[in-house]
């Protein structure tokens, strides 16, 4: 079971590296959305300071949504998804490997890039570790919850609007706790409370989401 998990993880990462241009897209999107905020609300540094943490989280959420669209669709179309579903190893485990690969190649770069955006919003440098921590704790939940929605819409073309409608309500708690923790970090306060809550949601998603994703994939293949 573990070896199947690692095998799927390795294949996903290999494919991701060979399609590196697909990886850059959500990252570019993340940066562009963040640039839109100053353009829209003006360059008042205090205002940017205030909206910064929330804006970064909204941008991360939207970038995740963009990348989730293709999480299972390519595999659905080329038939590799049904091959996974026909394997003796548990489907939920192998889909979890795919989801973790998704986190590694799309969410982790966002986390790495976020310090630059902290500076762009004129937030203090001290806020960087806090923001990075909140993103590290919260983005796994985004990938995991997202994988359920991606699995439900795997067989549908042009499903990006539907995917947003399905997923955004479900990710509200992650956004609330994440943005609040980032906000606290920016004002130099302790982020422990919301950070634990975020971690809790991620752990809960880790235990439940793979089963829902596996069920959804089986439905999509039917």
């Amino acid at each position, binding site marked *: 079971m573990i070896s199947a998990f690692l095998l799927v993880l390795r294949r996903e990462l290999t494919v991701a590296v060979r399609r590196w241009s697909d990886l850059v897209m959500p990252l570019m999107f993340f940066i562009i959305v963040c640039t839109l905020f100053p353009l829209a609300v003006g360059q008042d540094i205090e205002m940017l300071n205030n909206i910064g943490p929330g804006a970064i989280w909204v941008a991360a959420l939207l970038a995740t949504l963009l990348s989730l669209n293709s999480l299972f669709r390519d595999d659905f179309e080329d038939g590799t998804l049904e091959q996974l579903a026909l394997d003796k190893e548990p489907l939920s485990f192998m889909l979890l490997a795919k989801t973790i690969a998704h986190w590694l190649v799309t969410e982790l770069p966002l986390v790495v890039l976020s310090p630059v955006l902290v500076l762009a919003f004129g937030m203090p440098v001290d806020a960087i570790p806090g923001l990075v921590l909140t993103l590290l704790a919260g983005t796994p939940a985004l990938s995991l919850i997202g994988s359920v929605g991606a699995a439900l819409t795997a067989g549908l073309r042009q499903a990006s609007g539907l995917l947003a409608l399905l997923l955004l309500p479900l990710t509200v708690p992650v956004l609330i706790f994440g943005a609040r923790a980032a906000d606290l970090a920016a004002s130099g306060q302790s982020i422990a409370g919301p950070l634990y809550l975020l971690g809790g949601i991620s752990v809960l998603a880790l235990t439940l989401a793979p089963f829902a994703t596996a069920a959804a994939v089986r*439905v999509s293949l039917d």
Partner: protein
Amino acid sequence: MWTWFHKLASPPHFYRTATVLEPWLFWPALILLGIGLYGGLIVAPADYMQGDGYRIIYVHVPSSYLSMFSYVTMAVASAIGLIWRMKLAFCVAVACAPIGAAFTFLSLVTGAIWGQPMWGTWWVWDPRLTSQLILFFLYLGYMFLRQALAETRQADRASGVLAVVGVVNIPIIHFSVEWWNSLHQPASLSKLEAPSIAADMLWPLLVMILAYQLLMLALLMTGIRAQVLEREKNARWVGELIGREGRGA
């Protein structure tokens, strides 16, 4: 026990049960609705702070309650359908969605109308209203997902998974929204936490909740009947039923 279960799982029997139950739910609902409205709008005294404006709770509170009740019913029915592969359970789940969405919408609109005299604006990011809004999106997601999947069986199972995921999420969403609100509006006056509500005001509310509950169940029966007919439209018993009713008319 099992014969009862199997009987219930047969579409014609299910259809007949729903048909029999429907008037027994609908007429009491209508009568209670009359009593509740009379009690709420005429008998109950005006609130010393909000005047007559508070009377909208007689619509708002039952709608909010039923918006949740419908979602939980939908999720439980979906789970039964998914686990025991019971097709009729999905009829129940599907019938719940538009009813629940309508009650959620009603709850949002009455909440907004209430907000006007209370806060002077139509929309306040009150935690209850915000949760209701998210719930409304969950209902829309459920219905649009069904819409997107052409095949009934696939739509049943996919939307079932979504409903179950949603119902696990709802408590977390509620908690997060409450938490978020407590940070941004520490002195918010929560509408339902009136410390003591006068008996004259309370009984019409309880009657209204009961009336709405019965109304919802009656609507659910109608929805279930429509679903069963739609799915069994090629079955012989449906043909016989239509023929008989056609002759009777």
